[in-house]
């Protein structure tokens, strides 16, 4: 019997249906007992009432929730826009790095320089530098919004990492594929575009999805520019009331998005592995 990939945990050895049901029951009961115990320890501890008041305060939650949600909506928008730009730019840079021959040396060197430079700088520093620095220059014809430059900093940083992911994928394609394509008379660019890149992207989809999860959280870093996204909204509430419930609210929202993506990544990776195995069999 073929089973689909599972969303949680390692693959269990395949057995009969009854055995499967039995082990599922055992897993369920043991999880219930363990989490019940943990909850009991926390709730009966002496410090719990204080913790609840500071972190899990229902009335504070109701008060801060609308601000955090609207901030989080901005986080999502920043993430979506940045991700699309990153996926395109990173692919272009990875393709440039993969061009062979002396004629392409200058742009290849430029791509490497960019990747080394940006990967060597902390993201937060890049955000501060661009987000506060560029608008302060008041250059004509250049956007002066902190939001714009904050997202640009994220794009620059993640593009460098993502292009390395693509490049690993490009290099994982068998050399005969490149030679076969070139032998048909295709140029380097067409060989990359029609033959190498489609295979490369497929090979690195799990790694790209991991990047999604990472960026989806890192967009919150633009709070340092005073942009009212979820973390900033929670911080404002905290500064006013000395209550941390807003941060918990923001954390919940981030988890609601990142956990499903992480589970999907594992599911996809597992399915891909199974498919490759079936193919080589």
């Amino acid at each position, binding site marked *: 019997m073929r089973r689909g990939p599972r969303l949680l945990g390692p693959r269990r050895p395949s057995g009969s249906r009854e055995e499967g049901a039995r082990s599922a029951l055992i897993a369920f009961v043991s999880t219930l007992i363990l989490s019940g115990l943990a909850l009991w320890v926390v709730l009966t501890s002496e410090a719990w009432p204080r913790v609840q008041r500071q972190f899990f305060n229902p009335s504070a939650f109701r008060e801060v929730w609308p601000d955090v949600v609207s901030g989080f909506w901005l986080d999502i928008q920043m993430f979506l826009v940045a991700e699309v730009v990153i996926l395109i730019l990173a692919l272009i840079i990875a393709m440039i790095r993969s061009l062979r021959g002396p004629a392409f040396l200058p742009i290849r060197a430029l791509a490497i320089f960019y990747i080394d430079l940006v990967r060597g700088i902390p993201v937060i520093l890049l955000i501060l530098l661009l987000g506060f620095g560029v608008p302060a220059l008041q250059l004509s014809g250049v956007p002066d919004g902190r939001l714009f430059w904050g997202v640009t900093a994220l794009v620059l940083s993640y593009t460098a990492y993502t292009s390395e992911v693509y490049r690993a994928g490009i290099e994982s394609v068998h050399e*005969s594929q490149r030679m*076969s394509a070139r*032998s*048909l*008379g*295709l140029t380097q660019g067409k060989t990359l575009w029609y033959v190498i890149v489609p*295979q490369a992207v497929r090979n690195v989809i799990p790694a790209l999805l991991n990047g999604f999860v990472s960026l989806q959280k890192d967009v919150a870093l633009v709070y340092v520019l005073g942009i009212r996204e979820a973390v900033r909204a929670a911080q404002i509430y905290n500064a006013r009331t000395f209550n941390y419930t807003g941060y918990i609210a923001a954390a919940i929202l981030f988890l609601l998005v990142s956990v499903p993506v992480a589970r999907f990544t594992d599911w996809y990776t597992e399915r891909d592995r199974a498919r490759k195995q079936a*193919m080589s069999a």
Partner: protein
Amino acid sequence: MAVKLELASVGKSFDDKIVLRDIDLTVQQHEVVCLIGSSGSGKSTLLKCVDLLVPIDEGAIILDGHTISGADVNPNQVRQKMGIVFQAFNLFPHMNVLDNITLGPRKVHGLSREEAEARAELLLERFGLTDKTHDYPDRLSGGQQQRVAVIRALASEPELMLFDEITSALDPELVAEVLNVIRGLKQEGMTMLIATHEMGFARDVADRVCFLDGGLILEQGAPRDLFTNPTQPRTQQFLQRIVEAGRL
């Protein structure tokens, strides 16, 4: 007969290792030349040099009277006159058979999709693979994959075909169907340069056989002469081993 391809004093090294030395080889129009020799003797590199996939260090490669090994030549144009098929991983796994075959004609030769597909369908029919038109490579047997690879090369209407041990990764029972395709091409008068380990096939199909050893063409001649009366001790030794292995 006109000279199709000429290699003059061609040399090639990878780092310190010399893989081809002082290769002189002439292939006439419609001639079938087989390259034999043990693995690492330079057969495969020689073919890749001819298709300009590997740059040579010394000498010259001349196609139809024009030197193609120079820096002023556009390799993409030269390659349109030739087709090459490798040992394995020829087909693009993300494209079906039809797209594999039409990629070159469409993206290099500028044919419309309809024209390219008509040409591909004609070739598929000729080689008995019409029912595989829309299959992906992983659905084909190794022999079928290699035959499609040959068709893909033919779709660009080459004047010279290069084969790089195209049966050595195949199960024994699939070898014949691929070799028969080459026999068919010989009858049509295709000029071919073939690196092979199949000695029986080489004796059968070749007009001339070259024995390569250590990057050198040690001996060449008509298959009847070379296989029955090799003059060089190294050739004798090589053929002796082939006979002992029951491959000739």
